[in-house]
């Protein structure tokens, strides 16, 4: 009778595996990736999922079978053994090898996402944005269209954007606008200068597989490059609207709404500290939006308060 307890263990484990099998079909899975490095992150995720999944099923199967097979029997005596040296060596070396392998293969991706040396340099071709987190919103500062043009003629002028706010900067709360990188063409990287005015926050963009804490007193560089776009000029409203699926030409497409979340607890309205990522088709579209945003900004707040913390 006792052996039937193994069924309980087996059922729970089976359900656990089952959930991972059905979840992707239910839409409960990794959101669409649209960043250049997100594919590497996902690959590593699936690699680890494969390896851990294998050892999960293996160990649990041994356990469940063991409970079934070796449950109490008064006619039998347990085997008297204190261990097995060969086995110990085997099950130390094999996992050690696998773990070292997992350790090594990921270093490149991590370097690529986070190392200072991989950050795009301010210059003519780098999109620069300052994101200042505060309780409980994202204040985003863009260079004005004029300033961006000046970077083209003299890249050195792009150096000070992250450090010094300028009179002509464009401020847009909670909307992160960039333009797309087209595969095979010159990289269109985004360099974010991430700051906070008050407490810790964290910029999390699930569709980019990207997260970085904002730390009081520090400016942290963050980079990404987006390979798809989700924003187009809506003919009816005359606004640039996201949720746009370029393939079908429809708006309000769930897969094309890319939210920006705060992932580090920051107080009362942490849960509501959200923004959105707008990716324009190209630089020209972006500039067109930026001009519109500049006008809006001037209309709303003629004298812009400094966002410098």
């Amino acid at each position, binding site marked *: 009778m006792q052996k039937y307890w193994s069924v309980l263990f087996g059922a729970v484990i089976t359900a656990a595996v089952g959930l991972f099998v059905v979840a992707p079909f239910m839409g409960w899975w990794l959101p669409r990736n649209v960043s250049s490095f997100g594919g590497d992150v996902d690959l590593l995720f699936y690699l680890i999922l494969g390896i851990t999944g294998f050892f999960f099923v293996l160990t649990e199967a041994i356990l469940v079978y063991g409970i079934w097979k070796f449950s109490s029997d008064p006619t039998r005596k*347990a085997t008297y053994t204190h261990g097995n040296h060969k086995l110990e060596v085997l099950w130390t070396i094999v996992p050690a090898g696998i773990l070292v392998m997992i350790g090594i293969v990921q270093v490149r991706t991590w370097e690529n996402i986070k190392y200072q040396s991989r950050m795009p340099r301010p210059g003519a071709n780098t999109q620069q944005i300052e994101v200042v987190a505060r309780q409980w919103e994202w204040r985003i500062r863009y260079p004005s269209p004029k300033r961006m043009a000046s970077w083209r003629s003299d890249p050195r002028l792009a150096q000070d954007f992250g450090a010094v706010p300028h009179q002509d900067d464009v401020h847009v709360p909670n909307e992160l606008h960039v333009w797309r990188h087209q595969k095979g063409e010159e990289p269109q990287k985004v360099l974010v200068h991430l700051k906070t005015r008050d407490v810790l926050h964290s910029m999390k963009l699930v569709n980019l597989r990207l997260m970085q804490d904002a730390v009081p007193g520090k400016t942290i560089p963050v980079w990404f490059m987006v390979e798809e776009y989700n924003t187009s000029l809506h003919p009816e409203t005359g606004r640039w609207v996201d949720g746009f699926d370029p393939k079908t030409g429809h708006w309000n497409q769930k897969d094309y709404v890319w939210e920006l979340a705060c992932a580090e607890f920051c107080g009362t309205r942490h849960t509501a500290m959200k923004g959105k990522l707008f990716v324009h088709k190209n630089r020209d579209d972006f500039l067109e939006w930026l001009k519109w945003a500049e006008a809006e900004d001037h209309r709303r707040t003629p004298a812009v308060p400094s966002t410098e913390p």
Partner: protein
Amino acid sequence: MSVSIPHEAGAHQHPQLSFLRKYIFSEDHKVIGIQFMFSGVIFLMLGGALALLVRLQLGWPHAQVPILDKIMGDGSAGGRMGYDTYNMLFTMHASVMIFFVIIPLLTGAFGNFLIPLQIGAPDMAFPKLNMMSYWFMWPAFTIILISFFAHGGAASSGWTSYPTIASISMPAGQGFESPAQAGSGWGQILWLMSLIFVGISSMMGSVNYITTIINMRCSGMTLFRMPMSVWSLFITAILQAFALPVLTVALFLQLMDKTLNTSFFLPPGTLNFGNWQTGPGGGQTLLWQHLFWFYSHPAVYIMILPAMGMVSDVISTFSRKPLFGYKPMVYSITGIAGLGFIVWGHHMFQSGMDPRLGTGFMLATIMIALPSAVKTFNWLGTIWQGNLTLNTPMLNALAFVSMFVIGGLSGIFMAATPVDVYIHDSYFIVAHLHYVLFMSTVFGIFAGIYFWFPKMFGRMMNERWGKVHFAITFIASNGVFYPMHILGIAGHMRRIADPEQYQFLKPLMPINEFMSISAFVLGFGQFIFLANLFYSVFWGPKSGRNPWHSNSLEWTAPSPPPHGNFESPPVVYRGPYEYSSPEGEEDYLPQTTPPGETKPAGEAVPQHA
């Protein structure tokens, strides 16, 4: 070498103590252990209630629950839980569970109860210090309970209490409210004070455990004849002794930031809160995270190693088979402890710490999965070709093994820095920590309570209800925690009061609801355990000395053992896991069985299955 204390330990030699000295201000390690146990169980109920309120909000974020405004006051007007209330709930849930339930239960209750009994000592090396270690918990209990009624509510910045949300204070002379949020004022100050007392208590405990294990082992009890419970408690005590001072320092620094307007965690430059600015500080926000995790990573092992030890004892006993790979098991926990001190940075991969440092911490972290794997394989090796008695303690111990596998494997995802870029601070982390802390440690604690209850009280717990409790707990807890992995993979942030704020989280709400329902089943299932526990203390059937036919020393003492534990100082001749030895006639040979003898001494009591 063990040193036996020339102390004629016998119950008859202790003078009759007054009720107060015997049960309240007791110096007897067993009474102190049981005191820790009941305090822990009471706080477990509080922590559980807080968790259910958290789940209530997450399952139905926009529901109006009529009684909520009565319990929570203004913050939840109209019965809809306010954000501040929610933030307080998840903070206090974790704080209570970690500092008032798991650590006191493992080291306080089992550490105290088991160490002297399993090494054949009459008591701890410093009985008065031991008593103080329990009574220093009471200021902590009192302060943390008072904090719920503090102005602004109890602490609300997470159990990690990161600055500057936690540490910021008003300028001198303007009171102790916080400009950052309601719960970071008085609530946070009381939280810090309370934890300082917990720390002092644990420190006294660990000094005592280390000394006792080194000096008071009975004759013949060499280090490698100690049961795994003692080994793991020994290593845990060492971890605690080295890591706790760092936490204590950090707590004091933050307390000074909050009350004396120091700026240990305030950066140079000003911070803006509403319409006023902090003065320029001279500190570092990230300093707290380093100090906190330098303690708290070793602490997560403090929160599981004793359970691993107890589970090893239980599994060997009920497999009727020696523990497979005793020495590798010992080396594994030592390895975990050593590596445990150099991996704290894995909590800070995305914190703004230099990413090159992250690479180093990643490599160390990945390797810490190895000793965990070795332990798992050895438990499986112990079961293999055993003769398993699947009673309540054993089932809980097996649940520990099967669930620890999940928690250990999920650790590898997070140790992988690029994957952590995506899953950090998501529900994947919440899943991981509950698989190691709830699904492993709490099942280990249940196993320990069901297993040693007869020794504690001389009575048996009810087996049938124990199994019912186990089945409900096992199924329901997986229902609560397993889907958290999926939420994390889908990007669900932790510590958010209202997932419906985000479009990409809306499709996940059915999962949240399912988890909440499971949580209520789980929570109410625990009343079975409580009833069983309290009923059995008074009315359970008498157990005799050795109801499980187990080998370690505590089972040779009377149940419950008198003050002084053993009738005569025990002498040990063999290891603790001699089950089914061909040498013996029965399937067990207690550690006190001299060489050449084949029958366990002592009364023969039918085994309860």
